[in-house]
């Protein structure tokens, strides 16, 4: 029953024919010895603590297993190359967040995580680099090789050693095995922690409270729906216009199209309001100083502050905008 596949897989590099025979033999031996593994079989050493005994230096032909190990390096290389050549499987790993179809059995391992959807995940046995990470190290030399390999690419799982895979960054699909519910929840947690926005927890939205001094109630805006300060300020203007009518005499007010940063300040300056925000550190900052992305990352809440209250903050800004205009 030796299929060409297994031949390539198991016994390729050094001793093709004998090892396939031995492989077959080994297996037969295994079949015959159904009983407690570990009893009577010549090739099974007592389960000693020395893990090298089974596949140490090949001092007897029972170590067919060790053949497997030794050859595995070469064989597996060959195996995956063959696969690539024949079917052009892409062996680069994809993002772990690929969601799997409902197969009725989508559970994988260890906490019923996700099953990878990738066609033929790079056998993970494949390697171009002599693969010491895969074999359990047939000799202490190989063991030593593991360490430098790990040091060089400590984060790289075996899957990445294939030439086709991008180095270091690629993740194994569906590993570690974490349920998608948990992944989704934690992903939004991370977003929230990074943005440190309070407000409605949702995936992919960023609600922050907006208060305006003197207004009887607060509002909430989703910062993700805006892409720059201009949009934010027009939205705020609309939201709070009912509170600013009659107070505003800035020339820029009615123009709903394109309030620039400076004209927002004009508006607020004209109506004696300053738009400020509380950042991750709890400091109140003037809106508009930093790039938009940085702002949304650090903005926790917004406050439209009366100029007269913004003593420590606004005067410089107010004067700045005065001088800019």
């Amino acid at each position, binding site marked *: 029953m030796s*299929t060409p596949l297994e031949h390539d897989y198991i016994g390729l590099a050094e001793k093709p024919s004998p090892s396939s025979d031995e492989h077959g033999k080994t297996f037969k031996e295994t079949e015959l010895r159904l009983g407690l593994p570990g009893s009577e079989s010549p090739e099974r050493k007592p*389960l000693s603590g020395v893990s090298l005994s089974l596949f140490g230096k090949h001092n007897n032909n029972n170590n067919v297993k060790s053949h497997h190990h030794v050859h595995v390096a070469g064989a597996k290389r060959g195996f995956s190359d063959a696969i690539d050549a024949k079917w052009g499987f892409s062996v680069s790993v994809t993002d772990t967040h690929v969601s799997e179809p409902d197969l*009725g059995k989508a559970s994988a391992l260890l906490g019923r995580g996700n099953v990878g959807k990738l066609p033929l*995940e790079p*056998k993970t046995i494949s390697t171009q680099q002599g693969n010491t990470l895969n074999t359990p190290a047939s000799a202490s030399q190989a063991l030593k090789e593991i360490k430098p390999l790990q040091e060089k690419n400590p984060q790289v799982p075996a899957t990445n050693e294939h030439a086709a895979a991008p180095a270091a960054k690629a993740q194994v699909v569906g590993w570690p095995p974490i349920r998608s519910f948990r992944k989704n929840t934690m992903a939004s947690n991370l977003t929230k922690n990074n943005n440190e926005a309070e407000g409605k927890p949702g995936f992919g939205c960023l609600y922050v409270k907006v208060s305006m001094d003197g207004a009887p109630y607060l509002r909430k805006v989703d910062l993700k729906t805006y892409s720059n300060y201009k949009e934010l300020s027009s939205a705020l203007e609309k939201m709070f216009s009912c509170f600013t009518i009659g107070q505003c005499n800035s020339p820029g007010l009615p123009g709903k199209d394109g309030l620039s940063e400076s004209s927002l300040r004009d508006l607020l300056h004209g109506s004696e309001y300053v738009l400020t925000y509380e950042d991750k550190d709890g400091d109140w900052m003037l809106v508009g100083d930093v790039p938009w992305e940085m702002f949304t990352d650090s903005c926790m809440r917004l406050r439209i502050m009366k100029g007269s209250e913004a003593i420590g903050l606004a005067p410089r800004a107010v004067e700045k905008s005065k001088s800019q205009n």
Partner: protein
Amino acid sequence: MAGAYPWLEEIRLKRMVVSDESLEIIAKSFKNFKVLVLSSCEGFTTEGLAAIAANCRNLRELDLRESEVEDLSGRWLSDFPDSYTSLESLNISCLGNEVNLLALERLVSRCPNLKTLRLNRAVPLDRLPNLLRGAPQLAELGTGAYTSEMRPDVFSNLAEAFAGCKQLKTLSGFWDALPSYLPAVYPICSQLTSLNLSYATVQSPDLIKLVSLCEKLQKLWVLDYIEDDGLEILAASCKDLRELRVFPSDPFGLEPNVALTEQGLVSVSEGCPKLQSVLYFCRQMSNAALNTIARNRPNMTRFRLCIIEPRSPDYLTLQPLDDGFGAIVEHCKDLRRLSLSGLLTDRVFEYIGTYGKKLEMLSVAFAGDSDLGLHHVLSGCDNLRKLEIRDCPFGDKALLANAAKLETMRSLWMSSCSVSFGACKVLGQKMPRLNVEVMDESGPPDSRPESSPVEKLYVYRTVAGPRLDMPGFVWTMDDDSALRIS
């Protein structure tokens, strides 16, 4: 089904696609319908829930745990009529949108037998006290978002409400938990038996303060923010602990972000004599630690270890972790469930086959060297029911040699292994009482050589024959035709 069993009372589904139409049928067909549990299901919307709410007069339990629901509006909850009072258990923790909070409060307070209430994240913390006061008999609570502006009145309101729940034994939720609000639960910590903090991204000191007060705790789910120090305190404080799950806060990060190692698990194994169920994500492990854990806790029945980096060796000796896991199966004679990780050779499977006589479920990834590994397991584990394997060099020989074993098991899953299409066909043909399903997204397997490996293989016993409802990338191997495509 509706026609055949009009008196059906309970439906529990897991990982199924359920439509709104199905929910409507359930709602309208079963007059005495009592229990609906949809675990990790999908395909329905809040409209389907509205049908259930409006029609199931005798509903006792509605549990949507971890399902993906298209949340169109929170209005559905209001469809429970005012006369409806039989709710005992409600789990809406997976819903994205806010439900009608007033309707929820009224529902909760008019159902005197409500024992379990698991809210979704959108229920704000300042509404929780009202809900609690409406249901002081609650035994299990899942909070919504556990964060709010820090205001003394909100805090004291909350603490008082918690204190009023004298039967509350199980707490979960705690999304976005603000550490300063955790003390609100201190009044009831001493009565808690189950605590799920696995969504609470708070740091070790706050976790420690909370956990150390829970002297009756039997079950703890927590993030690895608890760190080794926290687990040491846990071991000292919670002598009744039976189950521990530690989840990774940053599983896809390249560097460890917390000081959680194998030592935490060792501490708990030493300090908690009743510990029998473990799920532990970490980034390093040693044979010595596993050995210690095994000797400390021979009463372990479920042991699932996930070392985040595949094929990680013993970090002290750089050896495979065969001996460590071997110690686990050898000493824990009642072990029923085991999940492996780290660098492992065929040796570990030899141990498992030798000692894992009570083992019912085994999960394997990136392990083993040859078919012998699989053969050890299939031939040695007498009570094996479920086996799931990914990315292991297991192939045709072990599978076919142990074909009969598969009929004694509930299921076998193998993905990214070395099982050839030809072998799957043989298996399907030889074993008519098994469904041998091959999943391959790259096209029909018979368009490739027989020796080519299949992506995914799922084998399970059946009295009903092959399925007819499979998507296009699933093929059944059986003896009628080499391939049956549904």
